[in-house]
């Protein structure tokens, strides 16, 4: 009932099916008429209430989805406390309290991007290699299907397969293509190995750096602070001449200046960008529901400003890590995380629209 036959992406929330159907195509952008519909109703819970699409390149392509949401409920790559495996559920739940329509951008995210939820990547307890291979495969399918990916962890080992998937996807499309990698985090995460293991949540940037089409010239780190940053992590950034923007600099110069610099750097001569965003980059006062809550972080308003900024530039994979709803209070963390994605998408849509481009 929603679309022309030429576009097989359809959106009829399950709450609108059955005996009490809403009949308007754009019912999801307005206050309800017959009943509450998908608002605050979980039922078959998806991100944004978007239709489910299998993480299959043909299905993604057939549906014309331009944004695939993927959950990575994995917290066995962590060197600190666990809990992030419920991150994808937390953010889906939070999204049920929002409309896909954003007045700030006058856009319906749902239909602008043909958003789909590809569900959670299956994981194998006790086996990081295999779980990361599955993550790689799922992200790859979404990219090959022509969509950008919103990847929600899960601990911060998720960018290891995530960035590798983007890197190899790019190489297949453009053999000499270059890729940027940004890491926004309280922690420098640059362990070459942690007790001999190279694929923990302390090694996202070091693994990205190994990718053949990523160079130090297109990498940057923002938001670092405090004492869970052993010396070799700092040495990695220094010895490779990759700039870090610690919180002291972000506070002094402002999120707009610093955020713009890292985005410019990532896009300088590159064809794709991976943005890895750890929820502990935020101050613990607004993001308690994270694995390592830390003071002296970004304020909520600064995180949303950065999300909007990132939307101006766009990224191929936006990954949010370390969301831990079990430590959350009053859903403040999951709702903030949800808004970081929504404002990214809203700003992205407004930017594309202003250029008369489609996602």
């Amino acid at each position, binding site marked *: 009932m929603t679309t022309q036959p030429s576009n097989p992406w359809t959106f009829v929330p399950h709450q609108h099916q059955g005996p009490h159907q809403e009949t308007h195509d754009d019912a999801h952008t307005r206050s309800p008429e017959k009943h509450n519909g998908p608002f605050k109703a979980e039922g078959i819970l998806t991100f944004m209430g978007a239709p489910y699409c299998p993480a299959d390149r043909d299905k993604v392509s057939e549906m014309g989805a331009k944004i695939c949401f993927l959950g990575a409920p994995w917290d066995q790559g962590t*060197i*600190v*406390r666990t809990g992030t495996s419920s991150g994808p559920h937390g953010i889906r739940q939070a999204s049920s309290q929002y409309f896909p329509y954003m007045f700030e951008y006058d856009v319906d995210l749902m239909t602008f991007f043909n958003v789909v939820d590809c569900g959670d990547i299956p994981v194998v307890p006790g086996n990081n290699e295999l779980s990361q291979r599955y993550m790689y495969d799922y992200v790859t399918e979404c990219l090959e299907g022509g969509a950008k990916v919103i990847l929600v962890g899960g601990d911060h080992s998720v960018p290891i397969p995530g960035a590798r998937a983007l890197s190899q996807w790019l190489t297949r499309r453009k053999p000499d293509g270059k890729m940027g990698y940004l890491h926004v985090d309280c922690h*420098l995460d640059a*362990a*070459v*190995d*942690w*007790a*001999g*293991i190279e694929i923990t949540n*302390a090694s996202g940037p070091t693994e990205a*750096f*190994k990718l053949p089409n990523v160079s130090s010239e297109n990498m940057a780190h923002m938001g*670092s*602070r*405090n*004492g*869970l*940053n*052993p*010396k*070799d*992590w*700092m*040495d*990695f950034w220094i*010895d*490779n001449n990759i700039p870090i923007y*610690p*919180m*002291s600099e972000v*506070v002094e110069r402002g999120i707009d200046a610093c955020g713009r610099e890292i985005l410019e750097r990532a896009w300088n001569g590159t064809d794709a960008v991976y943005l890895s965003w750890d929820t502990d980059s935020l*101050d*613990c*006062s*607004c993001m*308690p*529901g*994270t694995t*390592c*809550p*830390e*003071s*002296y*972080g970004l*304020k909520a308003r600064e995180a949303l400003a950065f999300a909007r900024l990132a939307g101006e530039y766009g990224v191929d994979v936006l990954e949010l890590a370390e969301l*831990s709803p079990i*430590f*959350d*209070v009053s859903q403040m963390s999951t709702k903030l995380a949800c808004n970081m994605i929504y404002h990214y998408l809203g700003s992205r849509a407004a930017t594309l629209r202003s250029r008369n481009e489609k996602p």
Partner: protein
Amino acid sequence: MNPAKAFAHLFSPLGGDDGDNYRSPGQISFLRAPFVSLDSDELASTEAQYVFIGVPFDEGNVGKPGSEDGPREFRVASLDYFPYWFEFNVDLNGKAVDCGDVSMPRVSPGVAHERIYAAVRKALAAGKAPIICGGDRSISIPATKALSDHLGVEKKMGYMHLGAHLDMADTWAGESNVSTCTMARITELGNLSMDNVAHIGARNSFNPKDHIDLVKNRGMRFHPMFEVLERGIDDVMDETVSRVWDDTDGQYLSFNFNVMDSSSAPGVTATEPGGLESREIMRVASKISERGGLSVIDITELCPMFDISGSTSRTAVCVVLRILAGIELKHGRTLDDSLRRPGWKFKD
């Protein structure tokens, strides 16, 4: 320089016999420091500058209980940090020992205060700077008296407190050594001039009239939160640090983390809205550490059972460690730039 095992604590674990994961501490101590008894000869001979003393005492509290869990959670939170602080390029390993908790009798607050006094005297006599973690704020009464007596009548003492409450009751329900009387007792110390006292962050109405009357009567300078907001934290700290540190022989730095906004520090006994944000408390730490040293730090009124996600204890530890790291930096005790992890290679 031999960048071998002696510096392993600065780096990601090497694995195997060198330790697999820093979250397996075995014994829980402040910053993984060794335990040393306050009564042992070892205390004076250790190279550590700081001694951590837990004071799980909650019987001077007039409000919400729970601060006796403060030392335990403070220690636990400290385990999430490395001794290396990249913003300062310093190594805090070996800078502190943990002297355990002061043994607390029940329903005998007078005896408890005597033991706190004795513990702090011992640490100071050994030439160390105690980091005292309460406990309710009344523990500052015997602890400040210990510093005052340690310095002696000829010397001058400075005192700085950050907190939302003036705690200036001469007596509270007939008692004179409970938490609300803390500032009243401290301002009676013989070698503490009002010229060397600073109180930062007072706000809201758990500050009854007799408190402000006694503040005025004694001429105590204080900087309420609205003044901090108007002037900015840097300006207030420049003035107050100068007042407490200039021309004094020993400085007592006291934190009640209710100086921070309740959104930033929910795990304290008396949360108060309208306080400092985390980036402001880090400026406080920075301004203090620029003076290069102090005699005593105390942290009171942490209340872990009301904390959220462990964030308040972590923030408290973070502030203290940033002060210690800043002091190291001030004295130029930074690490050799060439020091690297054994087997380090940055580019495959």
